[in-house]
Structure formats: structure tokens, C-alpha cells
């Protein structure tokens, strides 16, 4: 299991949260929401890739379709 992925996701989450707070305090509410959304999309993309690798491993192990 690639432990780096967990740290990457954690790091992105932390930095996005800080960025959200900084932008909100500067009065840029919309930009703060956009940054959070972008962070969620990036992390989702990373997770989907990991899930895809899992499915391929399962398929190869059990020789499914």
C-alpha cells in the first residue's frame, strides 16, 4: 500500500483548509469556496485512481471478465 498517498491527501486537505480560511478572512468568499471545491476534486481524482488500481488487481487475481 502506498502510504505516501495518505500523506499527500492529508497535506492537500490541510493546505486547502488554511487557504480557505485565509481567503475568507480577506473577504474573498467565492474564491475560498472554489479553492475548497478544487481541493475536493483533486483528492477525489487521486482516490479514484487508487480505486481503479484496486479493481484491476481484483480482476487480475480472480481472473474475472
Amino acid at each position: 500500500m502506498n502510504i505516501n498517498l495518505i500523506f499527500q491527501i492529508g497535506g492537500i486537505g490541510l493546505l486547502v483548509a488554511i487557504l480557505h480560511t485565509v481567503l475568507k478572512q480577506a473577504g474573498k468568499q467565492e474564491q475560498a469556496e472554489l479553492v475548497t471545491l478544487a481541493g475536493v476534486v483533486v483528492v477525489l481524482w487521486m482516490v479514484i485512481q487508487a480505486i481503479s488500481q484496486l479493481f484491476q488487481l481484483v480482476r487480475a487475481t480472480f481472473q474475472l471478465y
Partner: protein
Amino acid sequence: MMSPSAAGALLVLAGCAALGNQAALWYGRRPRDLAHCQACLQVLLTEIDYGLTPLDEALQRAAAAAPGPAAAVFRMAGEDLARTPGRPPRQAWSQAWRRAAPELALSAADLEILLALGPSLGASDRHHQQRHILLCSRRLAAAETDARAAAQRYLRLYRYLGVIAGGLLAVLLA
């Protein structure tokens, strides 16, 4: 010994932080440039109103009132007028500001305020010029107040943005 990936991450972070700092500097320099413009306009007003100094000389004396690129524009305009006596003052004025615009931390609106002064310089009596210079000065003072408020909001924001964006990139590329 630092690993290449750590060194790369550090470089990305430093680069983004520098970019953020560069953007923040513009907000920091704008109130200063506006204050220098006002100082030079004050001296120009005194020279025109009380000293009855010729415009080219008045502009060059006004340039001595403040340091920095904003004051250098007054000097440029004054020297231009001294070099080409038949030239309309508004042309020398607008050309000097347009040439110096990339080096100044002034917004398009600030530049418009200064360019609007050009047509009245050297083209009417001293009372008329005095009123226009005072009007320009007051508009610049209002712009300076806005610029200070904007600097307070955006100076730290862009610095933090630079560092955080650098961190995000470093994490994503790791």
C-alpha cells in the same frame, strides 16, 4: 544531505512564495507612489502660484520634492519641455506618465487622474492651473486612502497565497 525531491519541493515553494511576494509588493508600493505624486504636485502648485516659475523648471523642482519613480516622471516631463520649447505641455506630461507607467505601482484609474491634469498645465492662467492641480491632488489623496486599505487587506493575503500554493504544488508533485 537533502534528497533531490526535497530540494525540488523547496525550490517550488520558494518560487511560489517569491511570486506571491511580488504581487504583494505592488499593493505595498501603490500608496507610497501616490503620496510621492501628491508631494510633487504640492511643490508644482507652489512654483506655479507663488514662484511664477516657467513650467519646465517648475516640473524639475517638483521632482526634487520626493524620491522614487513617481518624482522621476516630473523630472522627465520638465526635461522634455526644456529640450523642445515649442512642445505642448500636455503632450510632454502624458508621454512621461505613459513611459513610466510600467515601473510605477499605479492603477489605471490613478493614471487617468494624473493624465487629466495634462491639458490644463501651461495652457491657462495660474488660478485655473491651481484649481486643477488641487483637484488632482484631492483625487490622489482619496486614491491613497483606498490604496492603504487595499494594502492592509491584500499584502498579507498574496504572501500567504504564494506560500500555500507553493506547498500545494510541492505536495501534488511529490
